[in-house]
């Protein structure tokens, strides 16, 4: 119950943040801009609109997750509100989980708004046919952002927002290069130390690339065992985020305040 109250407050506060609103507005404008953008290319217009739209949603969501995640704890400490809250019968883990779920709710609502704009755009360009397949891509983006928010949260427990921004971005970039890290962790032609290093990186870094399903969705290609693939990925995001939250809770519990 306490967690829910904190989550609600975090959501209410976050949704009024100007930077997030600007981010959302820019994303919406860019989704609309995709129409004129597509006319510059020789490729099928709809392909570009879908790819650009999903890409904009992913990048806007990423910015929101990072901005929210890196400020979750430091902002409370800066304002000293954390001391007031923790002096009440609120456990530290409840506070942390409340902040996390509040941020996640903000991301979810923002994604929903962008999705409506995007789906409308595709609907009009697709001869008034709703392309429900695109929603699978949005679901994948959401779980990617769930993982990213958890990464930002764990760093926010013990670093400043600036340092956190670079650390979270670095983890995101490494995690987006799953193909590279995976191929480097295999093959007999590579040094055993190199392979070992990349194996650790590949299996222990959150693999954001798993959630990039835009290409087959846009081209109407059916992913083999699609339901299984999506289920594994959702489970992966939940389990990985759980690990990160547990570590964040443990670190936060031990922190002097």
């Amino acid at each position, binding site marked *: 119950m306490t967690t829910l109250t904190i989550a609600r407050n975090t959501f209410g506060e976050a949704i009024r943040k100007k930077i997030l609103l600007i981010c959302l507005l820019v994303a919406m404008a860019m989704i609309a801009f995709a129409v004129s*953008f597509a006319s*510059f*290319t*020789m*490729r099928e217009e709809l*392909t*570009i609109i*879908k*790819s*650009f739209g*999903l*890409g904009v949603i*992913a*990048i806007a969501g*990423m910015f929101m997750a990072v901005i929210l995640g890196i400020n979750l704890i430091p902002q409370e400490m800066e304002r000293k509100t954390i001391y007031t809250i923790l002096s009440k019968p609120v*456990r*530290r*883990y409840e506070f942390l989980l409340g902040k996390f779920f509040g941020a996640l709710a903000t991301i979810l609502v923002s994604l929903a708004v962008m999705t409506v704009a995007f789906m409308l755009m595709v609907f009009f360009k697709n001869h008034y046919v709703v392309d429900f397949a695109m929603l699978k891509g949005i679901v994948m983006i959401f779980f990617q952002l769930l993982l990213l928010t958890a990464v930002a949260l764990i760093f926010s427990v013990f670093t400043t927002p600036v340092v956190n921004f670079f650390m979270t971005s670095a983890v995101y*970039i490494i995690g*987006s290069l*799953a*193909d590279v890290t*995976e191929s480097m962790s295999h093959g007999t032609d590579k040094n055993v130390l190199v392979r070992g290093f990349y194996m650790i990186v*590949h*299996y*222990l870094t959150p*693999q954001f*690339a*798993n959630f*990039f*399903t*835009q*290409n*087959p969705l*846009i*081209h109407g*290609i059916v*992913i*083999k*065992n699609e339901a*299984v*693939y999506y289920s*594994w*990925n959702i*489970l*992966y995001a939940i*389990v*990985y985020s*759980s*690990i990160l939250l*547990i*570590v964040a*809770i*443990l670190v936060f*519990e031990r922190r002097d305040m």
Partner: protein
Amino acid sequence: MKLSTRITLAVLAVLLIPVVVGLQTRIDPMRKEFQPGHGVSSVVVKDMKNNPVVLPSQFVAGTLIGMQEVVAGLLWVRTDEFFHSGNYEAIVPMVRMITWLDPHQIDVYSVGAWHLDYNFVDSSQRADHRYFIPAVKFLEEGVKNNPDIPDLYFDLGFVHYFLKAQDFKTANYWMEKSTEHNPALYAYREIAHDYEKQGDIDACIAQWQKCIEIGRKGMEENPNDSLAKNHYQVSKRNLDELLVRRVQRADIGKRMKSVDFQVEFHKDGPRVFEVDGKINLPDSSRINLTLTDDNYKEPDLKTFSWQVPPDVTALWETGIHGISIQKGKFHRKYDLSKDIKQYPFKSGKYTLTMWFNPLTATPDIQDVTGWHGEAITDPRYLDTSTPGVRMVKKVIHLTQKDIL
């Protein structure tokens, strides 16, 4: 938080790590099945390592967030600018990068292969034959990545094997493959033309009948279908013409005559030479010519490389690029001194081959020669090495000194 709770949580976190690793192990092979870059042959990857295309940072950012299709579209626009500015060398790495980013860009495969096969020309607009195999390989990769798209099968068959290589049997294989994926109606007609070029008239008649049936069905389903109507009419007219031709050419073998093929080679200067000769055939017949290294062998599709060998010489003038006959004579001057890169002449010996093939001749010429050259004979250069076909061919062996 109690110490025991903290320990329990820590143990739980550690226990969840193998779960994450296990999930990732299962996700990896499934992700690779559909992610861009998968299905690109190892030779392409190797070639990209040797000739990397550096993506500008904004494109890298685009690919990192999964906007490969947009990046590929923008690169394609840039490639088009290279086309128009004549910067042909820059196009090949671009099309490879685009199809690596997004292996479902059909027109990039199609136009890229056409570019490789047709646009690398010398100063006299002769295409570089050495790019034929890379073009085919590139399209085969497109087919592998887009197995349900008929256009790529058809392009392979018609644009490359039929028109360029005049390998009608392989062309037929690919065009027939396109019909498994509901192609445009003209694909069925080109198959009929291909059978005629192969000299298989019975199969050609059967194919025209099939075309007529497809057209008829299309018109029944939709009487306003102008494409089906046109397909039906064209097919019917072509079948009628073919049947008339078959009757007219039935006893053409009895009208056999010597074409008296003669060829001469003259060197005018280093890398400048002329070929001329005589042949007793109607105007507009064409003599094919190839001048290659003596040991020249068409690259194997299995072992080919994107790197066109710089030391190989392969001048290739066949089909519509062949030398036209006027009043029983033919002549062409070659000045290859301006194109040393394309024709390096680094080998010690060369083979100049000149031939007339009745199978590739136009119908009016075939009215004289027959489909298979039934009416052709020659005291010196009759060549019957191709089963069922009588053509005339002269092979001249040259040394480097004869050319340089």
